[in-house]
């Protein structure tokens, strides 16, 4: 019987993922409606359930891909992987007007550079506060606070140890997950309710997954604006991290 189920589920993994995610979202919207009386958005609950499941899956399998490492739920890896995620993000741009983008264009560009530099500086200060004095270590941790992609790219370019690179990835993951959970809670107090501020938000936060999930749980209409700037952030971070930012840190320590 188990063999039968696992054979069918493994062969149809993406379809299993559609069904499992569908049920998760139904449960989440039910909880949002009945238990929080609509105060917390259903998608915010669904994303939180997803993260909890990812923690559970990661500890159970010892892998790095959350529930996607559990055999029967492998299709979640395809459904939530980079290809379909980017496809769906681009589709949200349908119906966006060019004029909205132009209005926030300059602030959006400023926010990308400000976001990379500020996150880097904060991460570097924390590294120094924890007693690091080696410029390579400080730069790698600072780059990790930019995103979990910029961290290892920078670390490898400047010859950081494997341990430092792991730390930088962890810092980036903390950031990404906190943006997913924190955005809907803080949205109102930072004025995140229009296309312009969403573009600035995407540029400042930069973690594509964090911004994608955070805005989805806040107001799906803002997703295309935030996602558009966020996708440039990692590139700018990979560019500045091992070059300008590393040189500045080296001159200070």
């Amino acid at each position: 019987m188990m063999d039968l189920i696992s054979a069918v589920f493994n062969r149809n993994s993406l379809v299993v993922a559609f069904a499992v995610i569908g049920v998760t979202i139904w449960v989440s919207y039910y909880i949002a409606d009945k238990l929080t009386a609509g105060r917390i958005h259903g998608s915010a609950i669904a994303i939180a359930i997803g993260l909890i499941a990812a923690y559970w899956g990661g500890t159970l399998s010892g892998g790095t891909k959350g529930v996607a490492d559990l055999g029967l739920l492998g299709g979640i890896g395809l459904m939530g992987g980079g290809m379909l995620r980017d496809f769906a993000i681009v589709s949200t741009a349908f119906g966006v007007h060019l004029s909205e983008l132009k209005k926030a264009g300059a602030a959006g560009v400023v926010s990308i550079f400000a976001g990379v530099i500020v996150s880097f500086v904060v991460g570097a200060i924390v590294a120094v506060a924890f007693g690091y004095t080696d410029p390579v270590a400080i730069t790698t941790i600072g780059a990790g606070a930019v995103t979990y992609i910029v961290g290892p790219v920078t670390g490898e370019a400047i010859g950081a140890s494997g341990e430092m690179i792991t730390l930088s990835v962890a810092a980036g993951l903390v950031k990404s997950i906190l943006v997913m959970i924190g955005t809907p809670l803080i949205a109102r107090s930072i004025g995140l309710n229009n296309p312009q501020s969403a573009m600035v938000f995407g540029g400042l936060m930069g973690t594509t997954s964090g911004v994608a999930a955070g805005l989805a749980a806040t107001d799906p209409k803002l997703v295309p604006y935030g996602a558009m700037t966020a996708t440039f952030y990692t590139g700018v971070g990979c560019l500045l991290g091992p070059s300008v930012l590393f040189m500045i840190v080296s001159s200070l320590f």
Partner: protein
Amino acid sequence: MIIYGVALLSVCLLVGMLFGQALGLVLGIDANVGGVGIAMLLLVVTSNSPRFKALSSGNAALGIQFWSAMYIPIVVAMAAQQNVAGATSGGMLALVAGVAAVVVSFALVPVISKLGNNDASVEENK
């Protein structure tokens, strides 16, 4: 035809990704620089242009709107495959660095948004 919309979306993504990858190559980094952002701009431009009307209106639009509606479910699947266990095992340094970066960035959102509004009003005054 629904597939026309899906195909338009696909071509936008592929062209954007090619540009993003090429941009990364030019800049000397092994990363896709803004591929998704360029793809989004392409979709905005094509779907607002009368030349591509057959690919982005009527049934073709449904092909794009379906994926747009699948966005939140896909994001939930994405959340379910994050390395949450890895994030929590990084220790205090990783935790503090990540949290501090987010808190400071959140605080800057209203500051830079205001900057954008000022720019806009200056241009209007001209």
